[in-house]
């Protein structure tokens, strides 16, 4: 399984691998929103948690269709399925690789972009914590969507439509953590719900994704 993780990371960082795509998109959103909304610090501070979370979520969505589609097209998915690692494990490793190249960089860069949006100082810790807790759920849920649409030619639109509703709870609780944290309020409840979504999705969805891939391959 480590071999698969190393291969996926290596492919992501090689030319045409798509690393940085999500990050660049996130940067664009955070730079363009203040220009569109105007320079009033109070307005920006109010919308910063929501914008940062929406930006991170859409950035994640951008690279989802690559998770399985590339392996499906060149035949690797057939060969991976007949290899010694269980399909469920393969799906989990691929979701982890996706998180390492999109979710993790987004989490690390988010505080810098928070400055652009005038996020109150008390919110930075919660921004990083909520993204760190929430983005793994985005990758796992996204991998499930990618597994469902892997056999569909240009399934990107279908994938977005399938995955967006599933992303809503993560977005609500993630943005809520930052909003409350920035105002100095209690954050334990949304934080625990966010962690619950991530843990639940990571525990269950690899099995659903593997089942979807088996049906596609037959």
């Amino acid at each position, binding site marked *: 399984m480590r071999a698969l993780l190393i291969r996926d990371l290596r492919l992501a960082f090689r030319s045409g691998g798509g690393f940085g795509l999500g990050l660049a998109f996130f940067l664009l959103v955070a730079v363009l929103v203040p220009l569109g909304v105007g320079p009033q610090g109070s307005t920006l501070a109010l919308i910063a948690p929501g914008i940062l979370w929406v930006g991170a979520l859409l950035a994640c969505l951008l690279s989802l269709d690559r998770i399985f589609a590339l392996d499906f097209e060149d035949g*690797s998915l057939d060969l991976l399925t007949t290899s010694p690692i269980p399909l469920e494990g393969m799906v989990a490793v691929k979701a982890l690789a996706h998180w390492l190249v999109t979710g993790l960089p987004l989490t690390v860069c988010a505080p810098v972009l928070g400055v652009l949006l005038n996020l109150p100082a008390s919110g930075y810790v919660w921004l990083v914590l909520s993204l760190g807790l929430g983005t793994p759920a985005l990758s796992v849920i996204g991998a499930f969507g990618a597994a469902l649409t892997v056999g569909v030619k240009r399934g990107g639109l279908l994938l977005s439509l399938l995955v967006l509703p599933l992303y809503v709870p993560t977005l609500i609780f993630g943005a809520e953590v930052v909003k409350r944290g920035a105002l100095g309020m209690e954050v334990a409840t949304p934080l625990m719900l966010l962690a619950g979504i991530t843990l639940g999705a990571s525990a269950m969805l690899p099995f659903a994704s593997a089942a979807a891939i088996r049906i596609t391959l037959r």
Partner: protein
Amino acid sequence: MDLVVSDLCVARGGLTVLEGVSFRLTSGHALILRGPNGLGKTTLLRTLAGLQPAVSGSISMAAESLAYGAHADGLKGALTVEENLGFWAALHGTATVADAMKHMNLSDLRARRAANLSAGQKRRLGLARLLVTGRPIWVLDEPTVSLDTASVALFGAVLRGHLGQGGMAVIATHIDLGLPEAAVLDLTPFKAQHPLSAATGGFDEAF
């Protein structure tokens, strides 16, 4: 352990294509499958590889003993020849990359990215993958496509070496691989007589 297939019925797109296929393959032997295009050779091989369920009949073999070589080689253009092979070797827990490259005459190309290989070189790399899986049963679908005569001979030698070590191979091919001792199974008599009567899989309506 032998590969035993008895009364196997396989389907593609909800229609049965082959029925009543039975054969037994013992250690050190190869079976060549023949038949016209569209008869269901690929479907049969995919069923053997466990990628799709059989409609009826049974396949018995040792667990985790099968390596599948499809039409597509499963290569990553951004990785070098050595990295491509190294990945499959690590995945299967073997360490014979250098040997596999030597056998398929790829040693000079080890640092070349797979995207820059010719079609025949890609195929050789795809076949070298079989060597690093370390699995005894090779199920191969048209392994010689885009190979030149010399490479076909090279692959024939590799195949004979594999059989000599007690391996097995089921190969769908239209050309002569230089294995006169291999049994040949013509699949034409097994063509499904009433393809429309096939039990449609529950998921075919959804996909």
